[in-house]
């Protein structure tokens, strides 16, 4: 497999950044990594994952959809879309890589969301295999192998070298474009590292999490479970879980009057918010119970019902560590599962 030694990684970054925009996770504060646009000298984070997911690259928190000029009774619509520039996201973990295929199922299904597709077409995703999973990880429950991430290019590290494996046409092209910096390497030590990681995965506290009790065919029995009341009682109704979640994709469309015209933008929204489904004549989800239930039913039942059984969760563990009251999908699954 082609590789580059760890001490030359930044040379590679500089090379990529000279051709297109490069984003890498960097440590902002200890244990709070976030993606930043690469600038010379930036150090790749050693944290397991970023606080926010990588979905921003394709589905940003806010983006403008159109502009309107209103004059008297007349309205003029301005299409403000622009072709995105090429960019590379380096260091995406296996869970987040899978989240893109989940988002694709929403945004690339007919009618295709051109805003999302534009960025997806121009982005190259370079994933990185995990070596130090945290106690909050449960990606294996959703059939993800963190030692073999998806993406356009998968990168593996044995501590000394970074190995590059192309997974798509786009990835192949990318590796070709930097192949002069890479050399053939021996993967025997790498295999040992991967094997060790797999061993750790089996020992994780959430390794035994089962998904058998969930899926599209469990619609009414799960919806009508009496346990939602107890599960939702502590929920604050904030959007933390939604906003750090790599697969949450609900959005709102709003208008802003800039004084120079109307700007229509979309922004992330959360089904946990009280006004998510509020209409002029009432709200079908009146209490936090219904809103809470919606979020987890969506991930564990509705999404699989519409997408051949694929769950809307990738087990990244962000909601486990970020929820202000530590209520999360794992607790929901463990409470609702049929033992």
């Amino acid at each position, binding site marked *: 497999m082609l590789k580059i030694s760890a001490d030359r990684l930044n040379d590679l970054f500089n090379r990529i950044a000279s051709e297109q925009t490069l984003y890498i996770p960097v440590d902002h504060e200890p244990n709070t990594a976030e993606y930043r646009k690469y600038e010379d000298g930036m150090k790749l984070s050693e944290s397991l994952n970023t606080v926010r997911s990588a979905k921003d690259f394709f589905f940003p*928190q806010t983006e403008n959809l159109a502009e309107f000029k209103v004059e008297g009774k007349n309205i003029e619509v301005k299409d403000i879309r622009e072709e995105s520039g090429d960019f590379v996201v380096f260091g995406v973990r296996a869970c987040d890589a899978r989240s893109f295929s989940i988002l694709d199922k929403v945004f690339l299904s007919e009618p295709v969301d051109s805003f999302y597709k534009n960025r997806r077409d121009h982005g190259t995703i370079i994933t990185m295999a995990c070596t130090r999973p945290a*106690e909050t990880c449960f990606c294996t429950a959703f059939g993800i192998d963190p030692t073999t991430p998806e993406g356009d290019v998968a990168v593996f590290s044995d501590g000394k070298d970074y190995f590059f494996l192309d997974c798509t046409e786009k990835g192949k092209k990318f590796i070709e474009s930097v192949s002069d910096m890479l050399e053939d390497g021996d993967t025997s030590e790498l295999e040992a590292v991967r094997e060790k990681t797999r061993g750790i995965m089996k*020992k994780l506290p959430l390794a035994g999490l089962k998904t058998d009790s969930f899926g599209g065919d469990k619609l009414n029995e799960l919806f009508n479970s009496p346990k939602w009341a107890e599960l939702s009682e*502590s929920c604050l109704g904030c959007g933390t879980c939604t906003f750090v979640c790599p697969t949450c994709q609900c959005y709102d469309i709003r208008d802003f009057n800039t004084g120079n015209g109307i700007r229509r933008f979309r922004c992330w929204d959360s089904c946990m918010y009280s006004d998510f489904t509020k209409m002029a004549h009432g709200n079908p989800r009146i209490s936090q119970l219904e809103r809470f239930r919606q979020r987890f039913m969506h991930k564990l039942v509705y999404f699989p019902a519409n997408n051949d059984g694929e769950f809307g969760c990738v087990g990244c563990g962000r909601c486990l560590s970020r929820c202000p009251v530590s209520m999360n999908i794992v607790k929901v699954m463990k409470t609702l599962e049929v033992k």
Partner: protein
Amino acid sequence: MQEAMIKRAAQLLADGTVNRVMGWKRGEFVYDTTPAVFTTADELEKEFVCDDFTQANLSKYLVKESRKEGKILAFLKPCDTYSFNQLVKEHRIIRENVYVIGIPGGPKLDIEKIKAKGITGILSVENENYTLKIETLYGTETMPFYEAVSGKCSSCKSRKHVAYDELIGEDGEVLEPNRFDMVEKLENMTSQERYDFWRGELSKCIRCNACRNVCPACTCENCVFDNPKSGIDQKAAADSFEENMFHIIRAFHVAGRCTDCGECSRVCPQNIPLHLLNRKFIKDINELYGEYQAGADTTSKAPLNDYRADDCEPSVVHERGVE
């Protein structure tokens, strides 16, 4: 401590004094405790937890819980009793429907501070003579207890309970912490430095509303930021102005009512030091209008609902510190 609490709660359930108990529930890991309501001794025995990680302030839940049938038992730490008192004062909690047991406070631990040391795969955390022994998937780690103390506990303002029906453990004293140190440090910066500091912090905001929804002072039925008629309702900050707007207005709306419980900064997923905004208001109020601690009692007039004919003029802002 936990044993005594469970025992007393079970007694009060059994003799009919209360029909529910508000406490914390054990989670998946050693640190992830969730506020919960218990109704039977059995549940208490199995799931109730009160340890170094039960940081969450339970007062706000009592706004709803005290409006339900019957009396509820709530375990409140000293800092939580201030929030409780403030909510009683504002007629948000119905005092008669709550049986408060005061329990000793922290210092509580913040798992994020442990993780910040690079410790991951945490399986257990033991406190051995103020050294934390942390078992992880990658071996045993140790760190000093005080380095893992949560932000809100490290500047604890009081170990005294200001509202309770009974106490478990001893009551403490009001402390004189150095809680305004960081505010002061910022005040002594230049305006440009302060601006840069806050832009750096507030630009991290993802508008998840966790700070608002956890805040015991934010109990409006319909928040101005959710009300389409307010003209400033927003879901996401589409411009940096809106980040400023949200946090300034939120801090202002709780000024004089914020008890400095520190929940806002605890829950922020982006680690923004939001409590500094509230502390700035508290410090200003103390300096300009006399010492005031929200929640210390249920009768005093809130500083923003009060005035004196000889109050200082706003120009005082221009006369202090560095421009």
